[in-house]
């Protein structure tokens, strides 16, 4: 039987909707007040009710050309509780570069040109029960740093005049004594940026679909990707990540480099939901996890779809296309989430090698676009795959 065409169905649906939407309204001031409360609550949740310390991360911009990074620990203020000022390690990362860890409280000198936009992204996390506090100024903005999510802060600015200038975020870990707290933190300078401490550039993986060298990231076509990998990522890890991306684009084809264990555990965050025989993994639906949602999002989540969505689009908005599309990175080891900085590793795979794919540095500017697809490798085979998403 012949029914209405798709356009007819759409027209009818639109016509009915047009007459059906009820009158609704919101109070702008109430929304703004709720926004203030949310920002404040997240800051308090991260930092507790008292400022234990304010360690400064200062980004100084001058306009005289590239300058070397200068590091210095600075304890900016101590408002009571004794802070942990020892032991924490901070990793500093510039785009495409991997540099030596910096100590907490390091001062980083960045040089930019007048009129050159500079964006700095900082993520920190405290382990051992520590709580991260960022910018306890009580303000919702500090010279471009207007997002005070716990553990994450991003600032953008364009210097209009020559001379030194300071952008800063006060941050510190407070927590149970005795010290030290284990701290994980890193900074990403998306544009502009310091001269890297490590002159060795990161290795960049170029799968078959992508240009060989110095790829024009803006020119990536649908289905192309560019995978950045740190120097600690081995060839096998890169090949594994590339194979998974190939698989994500066409689940019916299983690349040789993608070696699954006989059964593969699938899950979300630290939770393994089920094990799936490897021969069923060509069915895209088999990868669905977290049907009830998570990370403050609706479910289900699907690792292959998450990856395919990043490299398969053509539009100029969002992670799916334009300047964001296909710019991914492969990394090793456990990692924090976004903006929440908990480390979600299933206990069953705590000792397995973890290879994870996420958006490349600078490819996203919001946690809503962040994700990690984690591969847990044991004995050369992928035994588990988990998904993590950033919260809206």
């Amino acid at each position, binding site marked *: 039987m012949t029914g209405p065409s798709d356009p007819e169905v759409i027209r009818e649906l639109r016509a009915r909707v047009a007459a059906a939407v009820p009158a609704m309204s919101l109070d702008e001031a109430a929304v703004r007040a709720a926004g203030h409360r949310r920002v404040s609550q997240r800051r308090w949740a991260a930092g507790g009710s008292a400022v234990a310390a304010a360690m400064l991360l200062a980004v100084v911009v001058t306009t005289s050309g590239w300058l070397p990074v200068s590091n210095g620990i600075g304890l900016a203020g101590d408002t009571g509780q004794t802070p942990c000022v020892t032991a924490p390690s901070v990793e500093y990362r510039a785009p495409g570069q991997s540099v030596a860890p910096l100590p907490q409280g390091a001062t980083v000198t960045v040089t930019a040109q007048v009129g050159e936009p500079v964006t700095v992204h900082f993520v920190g996390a405290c382990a051992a029960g520590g709580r991260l506090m960022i910018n306890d100024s009580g303000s919702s903005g500090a010279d471009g740093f207007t997002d005070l999510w716990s553990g994450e802060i991003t600032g953008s600015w364009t210097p209009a005049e020559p001379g030194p200038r300071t952008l800063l975020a006060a941050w510190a870990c407070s927590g149970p004594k005795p010290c030290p707290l284990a701290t994980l933190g890193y900074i990403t300078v998306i544009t502009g940026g310091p001269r890297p401490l490590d002159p060795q550039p990161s290795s960049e993986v170029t799968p078959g679909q992508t240009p060989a060298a110095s790829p024009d990231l803006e020119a990536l076509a649908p289905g192309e990707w560019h995978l950045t990998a740190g120097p600690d990522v081995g060839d096998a890890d890169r090949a594994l990540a590339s194979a998974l991306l190939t698989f994500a684009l066409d689940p019916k084809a299983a690349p040789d480099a993608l070696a699954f264990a006989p059964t593969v555990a699938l899950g979300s965050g630290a939770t393994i939901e089920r094990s799936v025989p490897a021969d069923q993994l060509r069915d895209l639906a088999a990868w669905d996890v977290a049907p009830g949602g998570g990370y403050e999002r609706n479910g289900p989540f699907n690792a292959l779809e998450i990856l395919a969505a990043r490299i398969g689009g053509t539009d100029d908005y*969002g992670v799916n296309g334009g300047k964001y599309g296909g710019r991914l990175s492969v990394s090793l080891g456990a990692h924090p989430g976004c903006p929440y900085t908990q480390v979600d590793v299933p206990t069953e795979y705590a000792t397995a090698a973890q290879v994870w794919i996420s958006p490349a540095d600078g490819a996203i500017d919001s946690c809503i676009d962040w994700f990690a697809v984690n591969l847990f490798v044991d004995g050369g085979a992928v035994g588990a795959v988990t998904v993590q998403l950033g919260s809206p």
Partner: protein
Amino acid sequence: MTGEPDGGAFTDELVELVPVASKVRRDEGFAAFMAGSQAELLRTAWLLVGDAYRAEELTQQALVRTYGAWSRAQRDPLAYTRRVLVNLRTDTWRRRRHEVLMAPERLPDRGRAEDVGVEQRDEISRVLGVLSARQRRVVVLRYLLDLPEAEVAADLGISVGTVKSTASRSLARLRAELPGAAGPGPTDRGGDDDRSQ
């Protein structure tokens, strides 16, 4: 490495760099955005949840997130908020989800005769209620907001192929629910989505 801030001036600058002006600018920008986009966002939310009160609640949640991320969202705040809107899973949403996704046959066929608006709302709720949650989001974004497939995919974090197949499957289901469009077509009350690429 020393125990003092490099240059010692940063503490003073910390105070200096807490600009009230930036907060004022943020509030002004947000207020203008909200005034201009509130109606569209509420409409989108209502299409997603089918209830005015919950739509207002969902929209407010999404706007609160947008306000908190204004420095990133202000590039395209409507797109940012819409994206949060279609992805956000609130506790309220979960608690009341059954109220929205109840079986279509349980929804009233007709509203009160004297209230055309209610009747039409009931009807569109019933029609959209036959869709799965993902199908409904795809239909709302693709056909009622008229977004490109790639943008729908980006908003929902799914592939373009899945958007296409889900949209196709959704239209097949809607075909039978919209008698005004034409006669009955193929119906499919089976699985959630066609996941083939």
